[in-house]
């Protein structure tokens, strides 16, 4: 996809399966451009894309009937109620009047809007507006929804609720999701598959488990006891003996973290690491304050991936086709 001055997406070839897929990239990475192409709204300069098995260049209308789209920006008129607005949008998607009203009531309830749905949207909080935007994308029961930065502007609680909702769209509603964000961390919690793009090129496309399992870091905090005045130190020794890799045990990496010095960062290689930690703590007779996963931040993935990509990228003289394939065709059974 090339604009007169900018090549927004460059030779991006990817295949997205059913489920929840995260599309991660910094601002201007080409996430929104990709969504526009997938909706058949702006034709790709070269290459081709398929959504639900339909070609975006020829079957735009058919795709848009079966796909929902939630834009990144505000898109709600303030002077109508959520119900009226979503009913109208349902009809614009081709639902007959009665079905439009029923589906609107259902969908607003599912996104968590109750009595307030009869009030004008102008008086809603950001969180409620995001829910209305999500509802209008879901109201026609699409097979796939494209969510552009759905957690934008939300507070941490709202963010968690929205992410939970996105997960439910797939697990409970059976609708495949393509969700963009610039925060890898939050997508890891929701997505089955994560695609990282930057500067219009593909950095990485892999299952979320690949991101997390190989990079999972376990933070463990224990109490001190009378027999072990330095509980953390004691545990460190035991764990090292048990062959568990400790990260930054000179206190370098834990610097600046809450409870620095009392927290052990452990590289989790699998289920057995958890057992080793549990047994070690129990063996020492210490109290386990917390054991939680510290996932790598987006920045880390970006740094490493970007470095790798930069060196690996071979500048081709002629731009070949940018093939984007989207095959979110199936509704999986759960």
């Amino acid at each position: 996809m090339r604009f007169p001055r900018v090549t927004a997406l460059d030779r991006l070839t990817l295949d997205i399966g059913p489920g929840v897929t995260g599309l991660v990239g910094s601002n201007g990475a080409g996430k929104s451009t990709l969504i526009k192409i997938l909706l058949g709204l702006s034709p790709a300069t070269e290459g081709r894309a398929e959504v639900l098995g339909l070609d975006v260049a020829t079957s735009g209308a058919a795709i848009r009937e079966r796909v929902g789209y939630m834009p990144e920006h505000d898109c709600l008129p303030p002077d109508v109620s959520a119900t009226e607005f979503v009913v109208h949008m349902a009809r614009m998607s081709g639902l007959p009047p009665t079905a439009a009203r029923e589906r609107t009531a259902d969908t607003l309830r599912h996104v968590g809007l109750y009595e307030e749905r009869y009030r004008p949207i102008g008086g809603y909080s950001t969180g409620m507006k995001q829910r209305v935007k999500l509802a209008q994308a879901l109201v026609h029961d699409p097979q796939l929804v494209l969510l552009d930065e759905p957690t934008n502007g939300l507070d941490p609680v709202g963010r968690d609720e929205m992410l939970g909702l996105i997960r439910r769209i797939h697990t409970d509603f059976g609708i495949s999701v393509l969700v963009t964000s610039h925060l890898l961390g939050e997508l890891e919690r929701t997505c089955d598959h994560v695609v990282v793009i930057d500067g219009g090129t593909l950095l990485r496309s892999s299952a979320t488990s690949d991101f997390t399992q190989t990079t999972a870091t376990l933070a463990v905090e224990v109490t001190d006891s009378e027999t072990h005045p330095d509980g953390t130190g004691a545990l460190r020794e035991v764990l090292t003996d048990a062959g568990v890799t400790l990260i930054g045990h000179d206190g370098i990496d834990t610097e600046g973290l809450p409870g620095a010095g009392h927290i052990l960062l452990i590289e989790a290689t699998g289920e057995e690491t958890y057992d080793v930690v549990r047994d070690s703590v129990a063996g020492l007779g210490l109290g386990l304050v917390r054991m939680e996963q510290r996932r790598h931040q987006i920045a880390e993935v970006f740094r490493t991936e970007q470095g790798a990509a930069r060196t690996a990228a071979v500048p081709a003289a002629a731009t070949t086709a940018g093939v984007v394939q989207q095959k979110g065709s199936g509704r999986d059974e759960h």
Partner: protein
Amino acid sequence: MSTETKAAAGRDASRIHNIGYRSYDGPRLGRAYARRSLFSQTLRGSFGLGRSAKSKVLPMLLFGVMALVAAILVAVSMAAPDATKLVIEYTSYAIYLQAVIGLFIAAQAPQAVSRDLRFKSVPLYFSRPIERADYVVAKFAATASALFILTGVPLLILYVGSLLAKFDFADQTKWFGQGLVSVALLSVLFAGLGLVMAALTPRRGFGVAAVIALLTITYGAVSTVQAIAWETGSDGAVQWLGLFSPITLIDGVQTAFLGAPSAFPGEAGPGAGAGVVYLIVVLALVAGSYAVLMRRYRRAGL
């Protein structure tokens, strides 16, 4: 997936009223239906229906004025002894009440298009089955229909009144028909011009001002210059000057083809030959408005 199943089970227990997601297997009526829905929503919205009470005030007030004046004229016509026809021509009604029509289009064209632009709802439409042309056609047709209702209903009142007064049926029907053709043309022309002005700015206020300015300034300028031309004896110029304002264009067309008395100075309206030029200009303006609107939404896709 065992953790998810557990989580789902917990949710069901804590929220009894959640009957779960139901998928939709009913009909999807597609593009033409979506276009009709947008048309009816915009048409209803033009009169404030389906919107807040506040937004009903102005359109309903203007509609009331249009209808009330027609009713009064009917009453006056019936009260006059030995009257054989109405005190006003059907074709003159819209010309006399052009200020009311102007206010209506100035207020309602921005509500039809500026709202979607200002609140960025346009991408929501274009991410659905309709195409750009469907959107423009629906908005254009709805605004023109709203104007046609505004201008046609008073003519209907006049017609019904004249029949009740037992004026000549054949004459009245013919004149009523001519009047309807005239206001239909006026509705399409004004809708096109109004929508173009309104679509150029996402700010509602600017849209209102631009439409009023377009209608009043051109009419003021044309009628002044026409008056000067008439006074200075340049009779020939009068009929061509009428080409430069929307309402005089309509006046010219109906003078030439619809048997209407001209509102130009000295009733120097165009004859059939100049009338063709008037008609061509009207149609060109309508087509031009459509083209500009299509262009306006080319980039507004997302």
